[in-house]
């Protein structure tokens, strides 16, 4: 017995022939569920995020607790000297290595995320303005992008850190300066393509302000690309932060940045290779999983853009 009875009594037939078309969000959800790279990458990123957030609760010691009598204890699987008190061993100052690695995840994720986010905001704004207005404005923006591309990024970043210091805020802003150009290039060309669409013309005819058109009509159309670039740039930002800290011109000791752990462990790496392997592998796994997640987001939001 149907719940409602239609006057023509054809309801059952109509239902039978109706083809359920899944909505775009539903399609994306389905693609996400069957995308192995996205699921694996996303899970590992979530794992690192959980470690970072709950480090104060999970870590067995404080990140700066030193015990000079317990210097350079090897990890627990070293049969002779390993101990469960320090599962990943200790560093040259007797600090628990597992604890320092867990707090290091905070630094990497925080700097990576905010550098990607700030550069996304700056870069896409620049790109959308250039793409939407065209003409002289666009020429000026192309010129800005060319200047950015010509500068040796790492050297400029090193110089800026040497001037402004290695605070986390300074690093986020300096790294954002390194990464805004790709957002600008991509959003600019996408904006150029959608600028000619009827719904933009309609909005213009209605007298909508340019700012509102860019935010309300253009931005939603470039959002997917921005998210994809952001995830990939976040991975690069994490590597560059580690590189700067490795060179001694990034996060300053004793803050436990993975790059700093690597450079501190370098003097002992011949006898205690775990001191470079733990932070090195931590960076590697975080970066590779963010990349897998980013590639996944691209496939899920725009499956035609593969290869």
């Amino acid at each position, binding site marked *: 017995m149907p719940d409602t009875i239609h006057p023509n009594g054809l309801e059952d037939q109509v239902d039978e022939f109706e083809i359920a078309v899944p909505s775009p969000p539903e399609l994306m959800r389905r693609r996400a569920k069957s995308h192995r790279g996205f699921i694996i990458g996303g899970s590992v990123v979530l794992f690192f995020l959980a470690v970072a957030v709950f480090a104060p609760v999970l870590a067995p010691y404080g990140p700066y607790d030193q015990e000079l009598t317990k210097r350079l204890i090897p990890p627990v699987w070293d049969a002779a000297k390993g101990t469960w008190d320090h599962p990943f061993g200790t560093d040259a100052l007797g600090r628990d290595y597992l604890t320092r690695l867990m707090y290091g995840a905070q630094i990497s994720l925080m700097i990576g995320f905010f550098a990607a986010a700030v550069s996304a905001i700056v870069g896409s704004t620049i790109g959308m303005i250039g793409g939407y207005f065209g003409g002289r404005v666009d020429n000026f923006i192309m010129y800005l992008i060319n200047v950015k591309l010509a*500068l040796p990024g790492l*050297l400029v970043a090193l110089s800026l850190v040497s001037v402004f210091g290695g605070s986390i805020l300074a690093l986020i802003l300096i790294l954002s300066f390194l990464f805004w150009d790709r957002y600008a290039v991509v959003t600019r060309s996408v904006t150029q393509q959608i600028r000619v669409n009827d719904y933009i013309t309609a909005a213009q005819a209605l007298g909508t302000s340019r700012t509102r058109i860019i935010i309300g009509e253009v931005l939603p159309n470039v959002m997917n690309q921005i998210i994809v670039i952001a995830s990939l740039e976040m991975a690069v930002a994490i590597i560059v932060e580690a590189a700067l800290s490795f060179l001694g011109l990034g996060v300053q000791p004793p803050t436990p940045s993975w790059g700093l752990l690597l450079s501190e462990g370098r003097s002992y790496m011949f006898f205690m290779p775990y001191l470079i392997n733990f932070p090195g592998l931590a960076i590697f796994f975080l970066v590779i999983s963010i990349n897998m997640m980013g590639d996944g987001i691209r496939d899920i939001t725009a499956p035609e853009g593969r290869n």
Partner: protein
Amino acid sequence: MAKFLLHRLYIAILVAITVSVIAFSLLRLSGDLAAELAGEDASEEEIAQTAKQYGLDRPLYVQYFDWAGDALTGDLGRSLFTNEPVVEMIFERIGVTIKLALYAIFVSLIVAIPLGVLASVRPNTLIDRMALGIAVFGQAIPNFYFALLLILLFAVNLRWLPISGNDSFANFILPAFTLGLGAMPQFMRLTRSGMLDVLDSDFIRTARAKGLNPRRVLFKHALRNAILPIVSLMAVVLGFLLGGTVIIESIFALNGVGFLAFESIMRQDFPVVQSIVFILSLSYIVLTLLSDLINAQLDPRIRLG
């Protein structure tokens, strides 16, 4: 062609001038360079004297035009620490960096092109997945960590290669391999996607239908067309590598421009830093200009469009 050339040249010059201003201001952003050079417990008098000695008491624009004017005549000033002319310091070391960058590109191309071709011929097979896996690995491993691993394996455990120095070819193998692995994924992906596009086109189908040797079709017809974007990417990567060798040069103690830049940044030797940043930017501008011109020459659609 002349119009295209002039327009490109005009933009290149404009960018070069801007870059020179940025390079000039980089270390001056600290505000008081003289105070930093004079040392932490210098008196006001000493700071004023330092400022006068290096001409830092003059207005910034005067200092800039002074430097830029000298730079046009090939004089980039002297290092604050060794008092050597900066031009000489850079030219002594740029050979090492160029060699390293070229070796690195060579390493990445001999891996990337065959892998990319193989992956494109058999898309979505085991070979394709392996190629992609190598690319993903190359993209994710931090090169300073990879460099340390190579040192542990080849220099310490196996004792095949030296740890540091820049006297012989052997010194360049590990650093070139490290940098090459980082540049490889972009080349691999570009070869693969370029080859996939070309292999799908009509003239390849025709060539195959004519019964030409498949290997000949692949390498002579297809790869030739797919290689174009790789040439332009090479210019970009070369420009990037010239400025991106800082870390690798300092790990392997290669005495190149990257290492010089790093040392100079650490000791606020601003004449050296601004000159290196400027010269590297300039070489990038020239390289991309050249690759644009080569592409325009090869593809009329670019220069006429």
